[in-house]
């Protein structure tokens, strides 16, 4: 019996694509949205837009309340003790840039920022550029054969000069959970600030930032079935207090004069300009929707889909999996077949998978690859989506071989 997602009908986008003959298997890039989110987006605009945290009038008050209620929901979703610990940014990428600029003043030449070899460009480039600005050392933790950060080597590389440790929870290429508990403990023992890239991890299962014990946790709304244009940054209170303001203007200021100004504390002090109001409100609707699902049923469905994906890939000759994917996605290359050719032929057949370097160019290079094909799953995918993918893959290989 083919796997059926009981939630598929809640996502008009997946149904529309299906109707168009497109099999969407690229949810790790961005996810389709539930009807509840679309309703919230339309509801906000159609009901009367207003700016937040500015006006005393009724529409402004209503928008501010809805906006702040999304912050409460995000805090609950991540188990942050206080909503004031959730900062809204424009993307996960912007949250990393906020951190890299906000922490810059603390770092002295010769100190280290430690990341891992599998980081997405979003959790690499802001640190790399900070290291260049400040003459810091960027240390890259190596991976083992399965694609996990090598703990033994990490223990040797995370040292007394390590000031920031920034690691992905779940790689967008390799699809495996990193041993964060051990790694974060190594960082904390050295007094480093710890940053977790949860952009992929947050989409699968519930995560508890308190239990994780990181100083900062970054994720993105658009991968979590919410709208694009919204990123989330959670910070522990003492860690948030160490951030310097980085973007200026709007309601982030407390007192402004021509020659000087004083700024608000987090979160508002880090939300310069008009924030993505509609997006934040709509994210609240997505979180409401997700919170009402049977989490165990979602996890079981995703695990069954993933098992089907892996079994299908393993059953075909010449396929090399990248790492040992455990959840959500699998990336692969095929012996003697150029990725670009395979991507071309899958696209021709209406299969929407991602081909290329997946914004992790150094990782692909270190694996000796110019690119790979990635199949990624959302809770709305059915077994039939994978069956269509495999049929298309077989067709493509037949043509190419």
């Amino acid at each position, binding site marked *: 019996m083919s796997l059926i997602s009981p939630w598929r009908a809640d996502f008009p986008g997946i149904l529309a694509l299906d109707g168009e003959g497109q099999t969407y298997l690229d949810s790790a890039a961005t996810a389709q949205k539930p009807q509840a989110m679309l309703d919230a987006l339309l509801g906000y605009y159609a009901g009367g837009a207003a700016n937040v945290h500015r006006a005393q009038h009724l529409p402004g008050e209503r928008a501010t309340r809805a906006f702040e209620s999304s912050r409460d929901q995000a805090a609950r979703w991540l188990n942050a003790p206080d909503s004031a610990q959730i900062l809204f940014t424009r993307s996960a990428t912007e949250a990393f840039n906020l951190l890299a600029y906000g922490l810059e003043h603390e770092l002295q030449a010769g100190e280290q920022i430690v990341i891992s070899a599998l980081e997405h460009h979003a959790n690499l480039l802001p640190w790399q550029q900070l290291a260049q600005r400040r003459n810091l050392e960027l240390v890259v933790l190596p991976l083992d054969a399965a694609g996990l950060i090598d703990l033994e080597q990490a223990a040797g590389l995370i040292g007394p000069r390590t000031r920031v440790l920034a690691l992905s929870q779940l790689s967008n290429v390799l699809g495996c959970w990193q041993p964060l508990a051990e790694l974060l403990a190594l960082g904390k023992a050295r007094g480093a600030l710890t940053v977790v890239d949860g952009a992929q991890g947050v989409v699968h299962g519930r995560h508890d930032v308190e239990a994780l014990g990181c100083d900062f946790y970054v994720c993105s709304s658009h991968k979590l079935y919410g709208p694009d244009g919204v990123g989330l940054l959670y910070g522990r209170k003492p860690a948030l207090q160490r951030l310097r303001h980085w973007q200026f203007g709007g309601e982030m200021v407390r007192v402004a004069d021509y020659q000087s100004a004083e700024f608000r504390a987090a979160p508002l002090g880090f939300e310069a300009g008009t924030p993505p109001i509609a997006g934040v409100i709509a994210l609240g609707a997505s979180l409401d929707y997700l919170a009402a699902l049977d989490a165990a049923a979602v996890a079981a469905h995703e695990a069954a889909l993933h098992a089907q994906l892996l079994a299908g890939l393993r059953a075909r000759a010449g396929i090399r999996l990248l790492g040992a994917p455990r959840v959500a996605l699998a990336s692969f290359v095929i012996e003697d077949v150029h990725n*670009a050719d395979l991507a071309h*032929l899958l696209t021709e*057949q209406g299969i929407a998978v991602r081909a290329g370097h997946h914004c992790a160019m150094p990782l692909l290079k270190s694996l000796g690859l*110019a*690119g790979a094909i990635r199949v990624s799953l959302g809770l709305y995918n059915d077994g039939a989506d994978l069956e269509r993918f495999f049929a298309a893959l077989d067709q493509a290989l037949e*043509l190419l071989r």
Partner: protein
Amino acid sequence: MSLPVDAEQALAAFGQCPGWEQRARLLMQWGERLPALREEERCEANRVHGCESQVWLAGELQNGHWQFRVASDARLLRGLLAVLLARVNGLTGAQLAEIDLADWFAQLGLARQLSPSRSNGLNAVLQRMRELAGDAQVP
């Protein structure tokens, strides 16, 4: 302006292509027909960046007419490059500057290969071709 012979051939072949499979086979056949680049032409200076596959493009003006030669390690891209060269080789700089290549690919049923989200390299090759032709125009 009449079409080059190769272009007429491409139009005839791709014009009657009923489906994606035949089109793909045809592209691969056209790709096989591309003359190989000499080893020394596969150099960094001829490398076209912005493609997921490796692509080299060499071009020279012969008596006022452009002759381009390309190579790529991806087979379908090679086919796309072959039908591109079929259209542009032999053109003068002025003709090259005027030609609507999006329309050319559309006539072959290959319009989607030029979409901006494609990183297949075709767009980068066109860009490089224009740069080469543009540089040659500068006195």
